[in-house]
């Protein structure tokens, strides 16, 4: 009985402490996020996706609490399907997740806490999220989102001008890219014979670089901006 009690103490106390550390960090992160009612920013989007050739595109990003988000671009822009709103939506309510402190790591030159987020329900698409949070300013230096449908998306953040709001100056999305093939009937390049170069295996991950400038924070954004 004594042994069992000790065993329970050994496992439960650290788990409880880890959970408390994580919750404090997430609370601080949420408090920073709550300072932003809305924002818009100019974005330069560069994509490096296997089998897609595209030049950098300029766009404007709009966000409004709690979950309104839109990217407007004159040209065609390629963006990750997930990674913009998933975390803020998940972290918006304590009942939605369980946060666990998983150790420390150095991202860039910043010592960061690794927080693992487990969604409360098993019906969500999101399976697991990992956040590397710099505890000195409560800035997310890196995040990793694993979903049922889209695999894993890793996002690296760099900050400069909007530190106090926790808004990044650049984000690098690393996404899983599945095998891509357009039927010849649709492409109709019927005379094209696949060359040895094309038969080489291509990278299974793609990168999307988003550089953000000219932030307009809490200036009041109309809901019409988000209507498509």
């Amino acid at each position, binding site marked *: 009985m004594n042994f069992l009690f000790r065993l329970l103490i050994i496992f439960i106390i650290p788990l409880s402490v880890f959970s408390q550390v994580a919750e404090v960090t997430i609370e601080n992160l949420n408090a920073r996020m709550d300072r932003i009612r809305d924002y818009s920013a100019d974005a330069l989007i560069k994509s490096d*996706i*296997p*089998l*897609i*050739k*595209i*030049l950098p*595109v300029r*766009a404007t990003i709009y966000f409004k609490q709690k979950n309104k988000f839109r*990217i*407007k*671009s*004159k*040209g*065609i*822009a*390629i*963006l*990750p*399907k997930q990674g913009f709103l998933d975390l803020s939506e998940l972290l918006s309510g304590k009942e939605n997740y369980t946060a666990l402190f998983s150790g420390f790591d150095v991202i860039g030159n910043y010592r960061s806490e690794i927080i693992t987020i487990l969604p409360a329900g098993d019906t969500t698409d999101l399976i697991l999220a990992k956040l590397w949070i710099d505890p000195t300013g409560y800035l997310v230096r890196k995040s990793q989102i694993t979903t049922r*449908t*889209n*695999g894993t*998306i890793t996002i690296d953040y760099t900050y400069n001008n909007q530190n106090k709001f926790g808004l990044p100056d650049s984000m690098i999305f690393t*996404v*899983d*890219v*599945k*095998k*891509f*093939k*357009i*039927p*010849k009937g*649709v*492409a*109709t*390049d*019927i*005379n*094209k*014979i*696949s060359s040895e170069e*094309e038969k080489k295996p291509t990278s299974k991950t*793609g990168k999307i670089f988003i550089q953000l400038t000219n932030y307009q924070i809490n200036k009041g954004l109309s809901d019409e901006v988000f209507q498509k």
Partner: protein
Amino acid sequence: MLLKSTYNEFIKIAAKPRSYLGLAAITILVGVILFALKVDGLSFISFVTASFEQTLSFEGNILNGNLVAFIVLQMLIIHIPLLVALVTGDLVSGEAAMGTIRMLASKPISRTQLLLSKFIAGGTYTLLIIIWLGIMSVLFGKLLFGSGDLMVLNSDGLVILPQSDINWRYLCGFAVAFLALLTVSSLSICLSCFTENSIGPIVTTMAIIILFTIIGTLDVRIFDKIRPFLFTTHMASWRSFFEEPVPMKDIYRSIFILIGHNILLLAISLNKFNNKDITS
């Protein structure tokens, strides 16, 4: 004399109802495709981008006039040779069938000039077909769907070209497509010199195009040596202008081979027509 004879050939082409068949067919076909894309174009696009859209999303107006024009050209450029051959395959053999070639050959014009005028008239008709196709696809496409970046659909990936970088590609693409169709025109006129009925050269031209296209499409090593020299291999080289970077070396090679075919077919036609025993 050559100009006068060419003018006469234009009048003959203009007088034949079948000459308008090509223009009417392009108008109807493009009209149908534009209507279909206007009604359900987005599902067509999502069919193409579906494999990407599991992880990525495309922002901006994808279904715009530039993409619509590109889809129209891809679909129709395969069928245009028939519309060209329908008119040009008849230019010499039609005269033989009607019995007017003997009278034509007795006019104070050399047989070389006579045949050259038919080649020029056939080429001009081909140019008209291409211009009409351009007007219908690019102009009407942009009018109906607006302009925007072009998403080029290749079987091995996507190329997205900015709106400002597209018009010159269409112009150059149409020029190369014209050269390819001119080869079809030359082939059908050449075949037309060998027969005395209208249907023969038209059907033979299409049969040759189908045969060469099959040889070109089959990924079999035995055809590797001859594939680069078939004119059908280079008929789709207009698409190369929509690649990034533009493979100029490949385009120059295609132009060279297509011009070579035209010269060869003209030489064969001249040789045959000049030595032809016209008895009909």
